[in-house]
């Protein structure tokens, strides 16, 4: 029985194990720049550009890499290598399911979920990603980001010399909204944006100082190759306007995503905003999703929100508070609210410590009532 809480926590933590590869919208929001300035992928995360590696990471995290004689910069034959490793300790109250219980108000189509809560904790490798990026001349860059948990992103980028225009061909997450580092946030995984959901296709990105536009046409294979790419296809568009002032930096973006998986349509629309005023930064996003539960099922339209306020308390120290809301699906009839806070500390170059706490605000009869998640994470990156 003692193994049950740990196993249950691990099972609950599996979604966390496919974390986005070091996408940090707060950095882009603070600078008023697009993700593609620091990252090879126009959607952010993963291998970094020369600027991201040599300037931002080297100078703007708490101390010089060289203070400690660190600064691995492995490269061979013109290929830059890197990676992300995240190890997490998660403690969580886990509801225990009683399969014999009759349907209840919180789960009308199945057994009552909540019988009792079991506290559990587990330590596990959350993410193990290896990167490789190689410029081929001035206008082409190849990159790959392979994760030990089965994620893989790779693309050939054809771009202008200044990367104002980038055409990507490969496997990637389609562009949509804020690519939050925590993919369990209400506007990410619950709305269908899982880091494992890589799609194969083409993407075009254009960025000027004040505007950004992205469009992607993608598909994915399930049980097949090109035939299923036709049956399972998607498209997305993201438009952004930025104001990179000296003191005030802001952006607003609108995103649309549509996919057809067999006979099921899934459409998502999102609006996001970032605001940075000195040490204070706000990240906010609202995402609506409209889809058929199945080909003959009722259409569901949940709405999710994410709001985060960050304070750069010091160089390399970020404190944040967040509020999330997720509308119900399947007619449960209740909106899930979550509040949380985090502290991110780049104490040592190439290493981040993160403490994250999240609490559900749900009625007493709900499975998530009083559910608290606490995560300590060690993030190492190159």
């Amino acid at each position, binding site marked *: 029985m003692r193994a049950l809480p740990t196993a249950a926590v691990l099972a609950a933590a599996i979604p966390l194990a496919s974390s986005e590869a070091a996408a940090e919208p707060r*950095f882009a929001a*603070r*600078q*008023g*720049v*697009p993700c593609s*300035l620091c990252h090879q992928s126009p959607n952010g995360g993963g291998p970094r*550009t*020369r*600027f991201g590696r*040599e*300037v*931002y990471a*080297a*100078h*703007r*995290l708490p101390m*010089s*890499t*060289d*203070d*400690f*004689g*660190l*600064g*691995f*910069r*492995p*490269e*061979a034959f013109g290929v830059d290598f890197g990676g992300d490793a995240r190890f997490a300790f998660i403690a969580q109250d886990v509801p225990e399911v009683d399969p014999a219980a009759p349907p209840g108000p919180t789960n009308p189509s199945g057994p009552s979920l909540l019988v009792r809560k079991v506290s559990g904790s587990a330590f596990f490798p959350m993410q193990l990603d290896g990167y490789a990026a190689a410029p081929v001349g001035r206008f082409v860059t190849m990159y790959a980001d392979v994760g030990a948990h089965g994620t893989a992103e790779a693309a050939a980028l054809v771009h202008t*010399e*200044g*990367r*104002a225009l980038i055409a990507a061909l490969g496997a990637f997450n389609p562009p949509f909204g804020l690519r939050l580092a925590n993919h369990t946030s209400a506007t990410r995984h619950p709305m269908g944006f899982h880091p494992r959901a890589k799609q194969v296709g083409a993407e075009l990105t254009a960025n*000027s*100082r004040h505007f950004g536009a992205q469009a992607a046409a993608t598909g994915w294979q399930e049980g097949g190759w090109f035939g299923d790419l036709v049956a399972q296809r998607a498209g997305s568009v993201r438009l952004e306007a930025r104001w*990179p002032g*000296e*003191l005030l930096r802001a952006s607003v973006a609108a995103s649309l995503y549509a996919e057809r998986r067999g006979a099921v349509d899934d459409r998502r629309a999102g609006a996001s905003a970032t605001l*940075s*005023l*000195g*040490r*204070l930064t706000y990240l906010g996003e609202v995402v609506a999703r409209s889809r058929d539960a199945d080909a003959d099922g009722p259409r569901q339209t949940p709405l999710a929100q994410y709001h985060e306020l960050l304070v*750069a308390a*010091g*160089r*390399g120290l970020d404190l944040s508070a967040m509020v999330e809301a997720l509308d119900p699906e399947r007619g449960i009839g209740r909106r899930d609210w979550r509040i949380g806070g985090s502290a991110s500390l780049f104490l*040592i170059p*190439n290493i981040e410590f993160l403490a994250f706490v999240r609490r559900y605000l749900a009625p007493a009869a709900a499975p998530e009532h009083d559910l608290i998640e606490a995560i300590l994470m060690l993030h*190492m990156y190159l």
Partner: protein
Amino acid sequence: MKFGGSTTHRPRAPARRRCRLGLAAVGLAGSVVPGLARADDRPDGARLFSVACAPCHGDRADGWSPATRFLRRGPRDLTAGVFRFKSTPPGSLPLDADIARTISAGVPTAAMPAFSPRLERREIDALVQFVKSRSPRFASEPRGEPIDLGAEPPGGASPDEGERLYRLYRCPECHGETGRGDGPSVRTLLDDRREPIRPPDLAQGAWKSGGRTIDLVRAISAGLEGTPMPSYELTIPPAERWAIARYIEQIGRRSRIWRWLADRPDFR
């Protein structure tokens, strides 16, 4: 595989040495910017520039890189041989020490980071020589002669006198009555790229020319080449320049809470 390479940096304190050893034990030991030394262990300025400077200033040192359009004022075109922060008269070349100072200390409130202590002195010197090699001016023109900055009067310059002089020499025309960069001339100011430029908010407490009193004196004395800030070497005596510098420092000490809130402890 270029793992490691010559170590070009030394730990600066015993605690950091212990940390370095500890981290080395978990396989993170390495060297910084591998392969930046020549075979004779002299720093390779070209390679240093490629790693540390080119991501902003461009591989050709002409200020053009993928970062250019996103940085507020754009990296300097080093091939033009025009340097903003120097101790020589307008129109003349900077000293090696001027270029080295900008590389070491960076430009506060701007995107140019401080490379000290990331780079050692000899590496910065190698970079200075490489930067000079990018502009033909250094090969064809004589070296600039440093302006006499004078010395601060015994007992210190008076900020109150500095305030009087600040108004006497019409600094508020551009810098504003309270140094906020909101003077009546602001809308007409252009830099050497013919782009609008505003005087800085001196009350911010951080100045592009540097954080020391002598840095402010140098900016007043030599001006800031490429900007509308003129040289006052011939119009303001050295002692008065020190007084104005002390007044500017006093402006910068106001509103500490706002300064803390407005500061971005990372990239600008």
